[in-house]
């Protein structure tokens, strides 16, 4: 119980098992995905796809840990870990890759000290254009 509480405290944001999100997400600390996420993630923090979580996204993060299902292009500027229950389909770029026995992975891999830095920057998400306020009729 105490361990579970500590784990919860490690992640400032938890996307619960009954949550489905489509869109783009950015955060600074750490997010744990137990539900489903589809879209883009761009962060300097840590991302955990929990065992029951499903991710279908292009992700750029400092640390990415996959325990569940993930699909998409993952860029980890520090490291990427695939746990024994992980199932990843997609391309990976990271300086350090850890794949534990039992993990299933299919995709293109670029691993090396400079690979995460070398990549061409993704275009930043455009902010929604503000609607002009209607002018009062004169």
């Amino acid at each position, binding site marked *: 119980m105490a361990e579970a509480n500590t784990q919860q405290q490690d992640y400032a944001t938890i996307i619960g098992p009954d949550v489905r999100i489509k869109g783009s997400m950015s955060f600074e600390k750490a997010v744990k995905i137990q539900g489903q996420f589809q879209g883009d993630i761009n962060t300097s923090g840590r991302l955990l796809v929990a065992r029951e979580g499903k991710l279908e996204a292009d992700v750029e993060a400092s640390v990415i840990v996959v325990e569940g299902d993930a699909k998409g292009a993952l860029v980890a500027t520090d490291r990427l870990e695939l746990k024994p229950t992980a199932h990843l389909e997609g391309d990976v770029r990271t300086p*350090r890759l850890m794949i534990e026995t039992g993990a299933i992975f299919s995709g293109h891999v670029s691993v090396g000290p400079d690979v995460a830095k070398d990549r061409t920057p993704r275009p930043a998400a455009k902010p929604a254009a503000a609607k002009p306020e209607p002018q009062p009729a004169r």
Partner: protein
Amino acid sequence: MKPPAKSSPRADEQITIVCLYCGRPQQVGSRAMSLPCRFCSKNLRVEDYLITGYEARRVMETCGTVTIEPTGNVVVSRITCGRLILRGRLKGNVVCRGPVVIEAGGDLRGDVTAASISIVPGARLEGRYQIGADGIDDSTGGRVRN
């Protein structure tokens, strides 16, 4: 390329290998270097390879372990092996029935199909990877799925 130095095994000692072609496991004498598969009759190399220098060839096949030392530099079209330990440079595709271990300083350019992979920080990789059940299936004795 030379076989690694190891303590001489007893003549009656048996090891289990998996055929690279039909995927069936079988017991063979530990001193065997090559033999025909009991099931599909294809010729199998069983010896381990230790590569310490430059090596260029089309295909490298063995049911044993291929070890590429830090001074090793291998250019090959395809390596099919029971186990791969990479400490040096390898350019080519790998099909491995057992684990692929890439240690610090290891540089692998090519596609990899393996049951499992261990990558130590400091390794450099570039290529397409099929790891786990989508590549080699341990439960079927390490047969490659077509």
